[in-house]
């Protein structure tokens, strides 16, 4: 993987060289030191010039995607220690050392897929207990899976993997960076939103509940117990408004039932539902609820896309699900483009795959927007990411260049 940190390799090489030098005798050491010094100097020079490209302090592009989703020009981004430090006028910053420039390009926050199964296909299906709050999605994810690399190259820098959809309550989802280094993955959020499911997947003949009636009754019981502090800590936290929720809904009726039962709890609840969004749009609260819909492709009926557009117009945040790896790596952008074609505000569409997604995944204070103090997870696109002919030129994770388009990355 070219993504293995260049500077770590260099560091190790340097250490080896110095170690070798130390082995020799005093006389030869001097000679050795000189030669090694020269070599080291040369290497440092080479490393230095490369290191700039690897961890630039400034990235300059034609336009950037602002936190509100709009495209603004003339601004550049300053990065330090893997975080965005400032967003300021590019004229001053372009001339700084360690600045890297992509003329004509658009800088976008790394895209986030909130309904993904990368590395966890088949690993998170638990049917035995209807209520399983102790499960943690991180236990199901194989971060060495190559699908992470595919996602990264399409500009998706973080994914949320939920626990099972077969349980009424099934533990917490996890958010992980798609850039995986040799020493392990970077978990952006281990204890993410608490996952609920409503729908026929939950009903099982082997155990309760076996119907929506039973499911909702069970859910209410649990919430009552949580109020009295008699449930798992995670459920109690959710009920007390200390954590977010994620609810998978099969049908419109499930969404309505979920809103009625859970809607007032949790800080933010994301409802995963695509087909009948039209029918539930009015019931969602713009401040506390988010609709997670999609992914759409070129065969999706416009009625379904129109529903999400209508919800968005009602000021309720809409997030597009990518469902990687089941959908093509570009499905987030395809969904966004199709929604804009059907009338969605382009700024809302850009937010749907970046900042709104980050908020629903409980990592809104960490990634998802180009603003100070957030991680420098950035993607350089050749044009507005909503345009499908825009391609990924480069991907930065925590300020480090981890992918460059082999053909076109030469700016």
């Amino acid at each position, binding site marked *: 993987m070219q993504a293995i940190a260049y500077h770590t390799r260099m560091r190790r090489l340097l250490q080896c060289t110095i170690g070798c030098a130390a082995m020799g005798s005093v006389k030869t050491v001097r000679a050795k030191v000189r030669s090694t010094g020269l070599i080291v100097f040369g290497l440092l020079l080479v490393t230095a010039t490369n290191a700039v490209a690897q961890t630039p302090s400034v990235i300059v592009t034609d336009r950037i995607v602002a936190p509100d989703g709009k495209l603004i020009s003339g601004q550049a981004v300053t990065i330090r220690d893997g975080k965005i430090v400032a967003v300021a006028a590019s004229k001053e910053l372009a001339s700084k050392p360690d600045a890297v420039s992509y003329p004509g390009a658009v800088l976008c926050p790394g895209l986030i897929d909130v309904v993904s199964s990368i590395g966890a296909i088949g690993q998170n299906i638990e049917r035995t207990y209807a209520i399983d709050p102790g499960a943690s999605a991180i236990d199901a994810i194989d971060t060495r899976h190559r699908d992470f690399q595919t996602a990264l190259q399409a500009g998706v820098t973080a994914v949320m993997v939920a626990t099972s959809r077969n349980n009424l309550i099934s533990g917490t989802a996890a958010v992980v960076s798609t850039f995986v280094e040799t020493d392990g993955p970077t978990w952006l959020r281990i204890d993410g939103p608490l996952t609920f499911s409503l729908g026929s997947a939950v009903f099982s003949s082997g155990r309760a509940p076996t119907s929506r009636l039973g499911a909702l009754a069970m859910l209410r019981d649990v919430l009552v117990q949580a109020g009295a502090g008699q449930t798992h800590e995670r459920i109690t936290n959710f009920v007390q408004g200390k954590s977010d929720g994620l609810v998978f809904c099969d049908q419109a009726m499930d969404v309505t039932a979920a809103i009625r039962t859970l809607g007032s709890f949790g800080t933010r609840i994301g409802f995963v539902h695509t087909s009948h969004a039209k029918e539930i749009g009015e019931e969602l609260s713009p401040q506390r609820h988010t609709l997670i819909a999609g992914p759409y*492709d*070129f065969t999706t009926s416009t009625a379904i896309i129109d529903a999400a557009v209508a919800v968005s117009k009602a000021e309720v945040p809409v997030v597009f699900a990518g469902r990687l790896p089941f959908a093509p790596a*570009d499905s987030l952008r395809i969904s966004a483009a*199709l929604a804009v074609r059907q009338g969605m505000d382009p700024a809302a569409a850009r937010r749907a795959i970046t900042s709104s997604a980050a908020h629903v995944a409980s990592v809104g204070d960490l990634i998802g927007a180009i603003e100070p103090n957030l991680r420098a997870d950035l993607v350089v696109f050749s044009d*507005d990411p909503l345009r499908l002919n825009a391609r990924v030129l480069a991907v930065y994770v925590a300020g480090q260049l981890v992918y460059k388009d082999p053909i*076109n990355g030469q700016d």
Partner: protein
Amino acid sequence: MTAASRGLFRIRLARAPLAVWIALVVFVQPTDAQLFERATVIENARIVTMAGPVIEKGSLLIRGGRIAAIGETVEVPMLSKRFDAAGKTITPGFIDPWSALGNLGGSQKVDATSSAWDNFDVYSDYDVTAALANGVTAIYLAPGSGSGISGMGLVVRLVLQEDGTIGEPMVDEVALAINLDSAKQSIARIKLFSGLRKKFQVALDYQDALELYEEELEEYLEKLEERRKKKEAESAESAESAEDESDADKKDDVEDSKEAVKDTDKDEDAEPAPEPDKPKEDPKPEPKPKPDEDQPNAFSTAIRALNKSNYEANGDEAKPAKTDDSNNDDDEEKDEDELEKPAKPKRDPESEVLLKALDKELPVRIRADRSSDILNAIELAEEFNFRLIIEGATEAHLLSAQLADAEVTVVLGPAVRGRAYASGPYRRHLAANGLSLTKAGVDWVVGSGASSSRAARYVGMNAQLATALGDSKLDWLKLVTVKAAKMLGVSNRMGMLTRGRSADFVIWNGDPSDPGSKVDRVYVAGKEAFVATGK
């Protein structure tokens, strides 16, 4: 002339024009209002002609369904409709080179003669309107997904007709479609492939049989002529002898064949071989089947009379009975025997279509996703020497060198949601294919695929994705205009906005690359096919 006659003349002159005018009005009625059709001029638009540099501010003149003039300024004829398209962009209408728009679907029993048009729902106005609203003005309609040879595709223009139906077949028989993708198991695929080879072989045999028939027919006619001349000379001497029906029958045969030769369109399948000559004086009572036999007329009577004497004079009676081998024309016996007309091979419409493909008149589009199927298709094309286009081509990236060598054109499908870990062919590797095909120099276009009627409207977006992933140096607009038209063989009529080409174009209120940009109007064949309702 006298004053009086001058006056009379003037009166006549005065009246004459009136009569002339009345006559003109009454009798000269153009059924097509072409003469009086108003030209349309679209002005001040940014025109992407795809045939040269973009015209930043220009005008289009449409007349008779075609572009009569295009440039920075055009001459505006009288009475023309003028539209100001300031701030808008005009592009050629998009062509979807692989579409199922309006396709009623289902895999009926089909063969090479089936036309995709039969499967087209002429009332599917919703899908067509949606396609027009996204800039698509023409599609290649693929036949339904039968297995093996599925019929012929055609180019359909998306127009809303006056009678409420939609679609107008623009070019029939654009390609012969073969589906290699339908068989899942290896045995089924082997059977399918060998079945195809057989069909092509049968077509070649049919061609040979037809050629042989033509030769034999020529010989036969020549000999008939010779004989007739000979008999003419002799008949002057011989008297007419009243022969029975048997002779009459035989003569009718000859006469029939002459008629048949004149009437080449008559469907004479397996014309019954002339019955063996029974060299007896007894009458042959059975009447021969004579579907074309008209009333005896002077000509036929004369011929009959002529031939009666011929056969009698030549002593045909002694001739042995002929066998049933109708294609035989024995030279030795021709003077003694009755000439037998060679029987035309039974008409095989399916082979006729395949022959067109073998003559390179009709390209063959083969739907193949697996690399093994693609290789089979290339082999078939090389063996039977036809022009090959591969549809689908999901694993083409493994074979780009072979495709380049065989000069195959590829139509890639849409980037749709695939099932991860599903069997190989069903994951759409748009990126891998685009890149490797471009590198190898294989010509490719992108279509919406034959699985969904809805996908046709997004062929533009699909092309955008294809260029981003596959060939970033290619302008995505080219894929759905110039390149698609060229592949379908309609580039002299569509795909570019130049003088003389069909007036199929789209007026966008922004940059067509921008998904937020809306289509304002669409013109197909010079008429408004879609007008956005301001919302």
